[in-house]
């Protein structure tokens, strides 16, 4: 069995994704657990002048820094393709119930590349100031 890995853009033009790594688990409040994940805003990320990154989640503030990955990573997406089978080359007799025979193949498409990550490994700071969203 073969699964093709494709990148349409070429390695130099592959769109760069961002990666944030946090030591800990994000938990959804019990009252909101029925909502789909994409209905949430996780927090606010900003970068200071000194190349420090601050991620504010709820009333916690995490400080992190940008690190280059030793080996860049590719983001892959599974794609299911249905290609019509060339009837001429197929040895199977066509059934009249299914006018078009399809061949289902799986492919992995490279949709992005990650070269750096923003790593947060310090203890979060609790913000009690009223200016926090």
């Amino acid at each position, binding site marked *: 069995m073969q699964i093709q890995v494709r990148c349409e853009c070429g390695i130099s033009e592959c*769109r760069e994704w961002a990666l944030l*790594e946090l030591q800990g688990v994000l938990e959804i409040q019990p009252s909101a657990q029925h909502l789909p994940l*994409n209905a949430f*805003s996780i927090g606010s990320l900003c970068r200071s002048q000194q190349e420090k990154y601050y991620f504010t989640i709820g009333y916690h503030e995490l400080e992190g820094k940008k690190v280059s990955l030793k080996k860049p990573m590719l983001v*892959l997406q599974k794609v299911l393709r249905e290609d019509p089978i060339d009837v001429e080359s197929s040895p199977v007799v066509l059934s009249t119930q299914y006018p078009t025979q399809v061949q289902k193949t799986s492919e992995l498409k490279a949709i*992005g590349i990650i070269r750096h990550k*923003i790593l947060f490994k310090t203890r979060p700071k609790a913000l009690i100031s009223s200016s926090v969203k």
Partner: protein
Amino acid sequence: MTAKCLYEGCLLSVHDFSFSVVIRGGLNDEAVLCTSSRTYAIKFVMSSNTILIMPPPSSHGSSASGEELDTKSETGGKRTASAMAAATGHLELVEVAPNFEKLKSLLSERLYGEDTDSMDVEESTSGLYTWDDLLEKLQLSEKELQEGLKSLAAVQVGGFWRLVDKKYMHCVFELILLNAMQHDWSLQGLKEKEVVSALMADGYSAQIVIHCLATYGQRVSLAFEAGIASNGSYDLDSHVWELNERHVCLHYANQLLSSASRWRVDDFVDAWQQNLPSGVQASLDMLKGKILIEKLGSDSWLYPFSVANLPSNPAERFAALFRERPRWEWEDLEPYISDLRAPGKSVDALLLKYTRRTQPTAETPPIFTAR
């Protein structure tokens, strides 16, 4: 938020990607990733941390390299990330040595032998594999598959890759050598046309004869003397082959070894040289990796011990070698480990891992024993 924001993105550690990349494996195999020349095992590395990945905003010009990103879609002047995913870990690639065992077993399903050669058309194609079939079934890169086919001396017949029965190959080779002696042909300048017609008269196909010439020798550039036919015209179709001296010697050595498995070295060398065509010189060095010599009293005896019959996995190979002999001198050991492949490990690294090296004095050669 877009509909695709939660696709299961999986991250893959990248080395050098030429981007002709395929994942191969059967339903019960561990998946491997193949570039055009190498094979990597795919391992999933779990992370206990929370990993969030996000693509660059599509309509905004800048790339996502940490510029102010807000993961909530807002019109309040902040930049937003269009979508996001959470990863539980990533996939790592570890280079692995190509495994030719399955290739050998697939091609051995229907060996090309005496019966095959005499048949004009083969009835069914089950157990026969084309290049594409092999790529579909094996976990090898294209370059490695090519290498494997070459090392097995496989031949492509009618679009299918075939392994020729060893006995059959030896038979054809023997006939070529006999004909050469009878007709006084030079082993350095065998004319393809002559050889093929002589053997076709005995029922062998041209394809197999040429494959034999290619396995045990090589084509030489067109020699003018060979090309000119008896009427003086230049014969452009005349390919000329030169047999490899070592293969010729090995052929006769194998014949002697199959008649008796233990030989006094001197007796062997005499019998060997006697059987060889004139002009061919044999030397015991040619048998490195095929025989072992042991001293019993004042005599030296040799017996077959071929590297081709040993496991290809380094750990198993060394175990088999030390079962045969607990102590090895480097000169004897080298031909039995020079073909070992372990990505990223040199022969010295393998020796360090699997053997213990001792050297009694500076003058005596080093001895290798099991670890």
